[in-house]
């Protein structure tokens, strides 16, 4: 187990956390046996189910009860709430379930599970819109988010992802504030073997401007622009990032072609406020949900889907360069609802 501590080994250790986990479910044992084949979905499921096992009645168990009663619905409520779905979305989902129960079309708790999965899928389906980067060249992607959300790491992963699709990529070191932010992005540039445009100056808009010019000159397909983390309460910083956007528009009236807001799955209901606030200042066109390899379930997407829907382009499932996946609603819902039993099945 301690071989994971060696630096080189760490990304692989992270990409199969189950191997090192002492968790007891059959699912964990399975994935430990075949670590190479572990998909993000299994990892996601494993992560999603762990908490539930610790915290509340697992959904799998709930659905295997043979009667639909108040207690069952209450347990369902608990499960949704502890997944960070928020009061509003949870209430909505429960109302849907209750009306289905009333219509008496449901005979068993397992049918109820199907209804819940359907409703969640319906709710989240509009968020599944893959990112198309072919319409412009260079396709300029601006990355924003609160402090520590995973912006820079996601850029490192995105660069790999786009390069593997045959696109050329260039990075812009637009975080001119945080200590060693530029150095951090440069290392991601090296890992990807691509150029990072940086300046000594403290003006993020100028760096991004430079990078787009460089991308044009070098015939690059995609520009990924990092920005400093900021909280929406820091109005001057929200204005600063709005300016970055305006400067991009100045050099290319069609840009930025994607404005990605990075959300940490560990964050609670404040994520909704984050979407609203960043949308107001920079017109968010897509989301990246990071750190889904942990026990946090990212249920806040349900709240976002109801209050301020935005396409979820990617999810982050680890710290390694390959730990990025396009968002898939059915897989997400399945993983969210699967208890340990279901995951093992």
């Amino acid at each position, binding site marked *: *187990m*301690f071989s*994971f*501590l060696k*630096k080189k080994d*760490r990304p692989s*250790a*992270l990409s199969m*956390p189950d191997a*090192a*986990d*002492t968790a007891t479910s059959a699912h964990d044992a399975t994935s430990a046996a075949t670590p190479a084949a572990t998909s993000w979905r299994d990892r996601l499921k494993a*992560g999603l189910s*762990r*908490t539930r096992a*610790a*915290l*509340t009645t697992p959904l799998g168990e709930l659905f295997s009860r043979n009667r639909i009663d108040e207690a069952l619905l209450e347990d369902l409520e*608990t499960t949704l*709430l*502890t*997944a*960070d779905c928020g*009061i509003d979305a949870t209430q909505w989902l429960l109302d849907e379930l209750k009306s289905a129960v009333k219509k008496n079309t449901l005979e068993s708790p397992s049918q109820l599970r199907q209804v819940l999965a359907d409703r969640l899928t319906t709710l989240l389906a509009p968020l599944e819109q893959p990112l198309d980067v072919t319409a412009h060249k260079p396709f300029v992607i601006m990355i924003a988010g*609160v*402090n*520590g*959300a*995973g912006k820079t790491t996601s850029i490192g992963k995105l660069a790999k992802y786009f390069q593997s699709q045959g696109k050329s990529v260039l990075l812009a070191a637009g975080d001119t*504030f*945080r*200590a*060693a*932010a530029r*150095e*951090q992005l*440069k*290392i*991601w540039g090296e890992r990807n073997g691509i150029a990072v445009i940086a300046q000594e100056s403290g003006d993020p808009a100028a760096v991004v401007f430079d990078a787009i010019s460089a991308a044009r000159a070098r015939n690059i397909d995609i520009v990924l622009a990092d920005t400093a*983390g900021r*909280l*929406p*309460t820091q*109005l001057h910083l929200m204005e600063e990032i709005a300016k970055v956007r305006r400067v991009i528009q100045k050099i290319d009236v069609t840009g930025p072609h994607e404005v990605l807001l990075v959300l*940490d799955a*560990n*964050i*609670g*209901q*404040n*994520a909704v*406020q984050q979407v609203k606030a960043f949308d107001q200042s920079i017109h968010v066109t897509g989301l990246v949900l990071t*750190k889904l*390899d*942990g*026990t*946090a*379930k990212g249920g*806040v997407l349900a709240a976002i889907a109801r209050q301020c829907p935005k396409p979820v382009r990617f999810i982050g499932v680890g*710290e390694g360069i390959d730990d990025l996946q396009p968002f898939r609603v059915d897989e997400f819902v399945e993983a969210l609802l699967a208890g340990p039993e279901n995951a093992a099945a």
Partner: protein
Amino acid sequence: MLDNLTQRFGRVVKNLRGQARLTEANVTDMLREVRMALLEADVALPVIKDFIAKVKEKSIGQEVIGSLTPGQALVGVVQRELTELMGGASVGLNLATQPPAIILMAGLQGAGKTTTTAKLGKWLKERQKKKVLAVSCDVYRPAAIEQLKTVSAQAGIDFFPSTPDQKPADIAAAAIDYAKRHFYDVLFIDTAGRLAIDTAMMNEIRALHAQVKPIETLFIVDAMLGQDAVNTAKIFAETLPLTGIILTKLDGDARGGAALSVRHVTGKPIKFAGVGEKLDGLEEFHPERMASRILGMGDILSLVEDAQRNVDQDKAQAFAKKMKSGKGFDLNDFKEQIGQMKKMGGMAGLLDKLPAQLSQAAQQAGSTVNDKSMNRLEGIINSMTPTERTKPEIIKATRKRRIATGAGVSVQEVNRLLNQFEQTQKMMKQFSKGGMQKMMRGMKGMLPGMR
């Protein structure tokens, strides 16, 4: 966030007025509202259940004193309990050991460990004249060591170099040795962020702890965390004998229920609060302020701070002077106010920070006041002549029609603006002795349980 506790209670207790004590019957509905308020604030559900049970036990049978409603009485119990749970007077860092006093930093990725290391270092150096050294055992995240080096320099504390090819254990051993030989009072050991379920990484930090035997093992927590905070905190507390918690990013607008979750699960004191990215953004933790924030009772203090930060001081002073000189509050001032309001995050931002009673009152005073309507109001004032703005009383029917056409609105809207202006003018007369900030402080005094 109008949907908060006090307002909710208002709804529930309408027909409970005059009841002399809190009973099982009258408390149950209110406790449901407490549950909702705590959920909205991201307090973890199991923690809420424990908390509610405790409040119920303490409140039932309590007499409702004097003019209080049962709702107010219960808010009192809830807030007292919450404050107590959050911990008493803030305790500083414990450095009482053979130097160097070692402080180990632990937490999730992106929590704020590195920044907080430098903040605490600066704090100890400047306030307690300590000789401080910092070292990074984060050999994983790109440029993490470089980051600590930079922030240490900014904090004016010393930095012990390390490289990503070293083992955390070796780095720590070398740093301790160096700290001893150079008579450092305090050594901070920064570590990589890790997920609680990453057993390999949790074993690493457990071993590191056993090796360095820190006097303080601090768990750094992002105040925005959601329900999962309990799980993370539980595993960190099981892996490491934590001695304290530091909440970061409290300068944001998250209600911060994670504070309660983590405090409840670990039982450890919250020692400091991070309130900014800069290295002076560190404060002692205030339990009652946090309790009010979680309950959605309005973070008046931050409202005052916002007002100070964003309101143009010169203009505010010129305005105050004008008020004093006896020259009345006119439409130019009204427009100015709208502009200032916008700077403070707009009406929505402002209302979010007000406690229930006030924001309700504010909404009623100008039921149409929102950000869009602020822009319209500005538009209407813009289409008035300078004379009209200084002497609003001359605006009669013909002028109203002209202004309405100019601003592209109906005459009713012009009337509404003039009404709002009059109301504000009246309010201004009452508050004319002080500026905006004094007014805010005045509001604070109107609230029970606020200091």
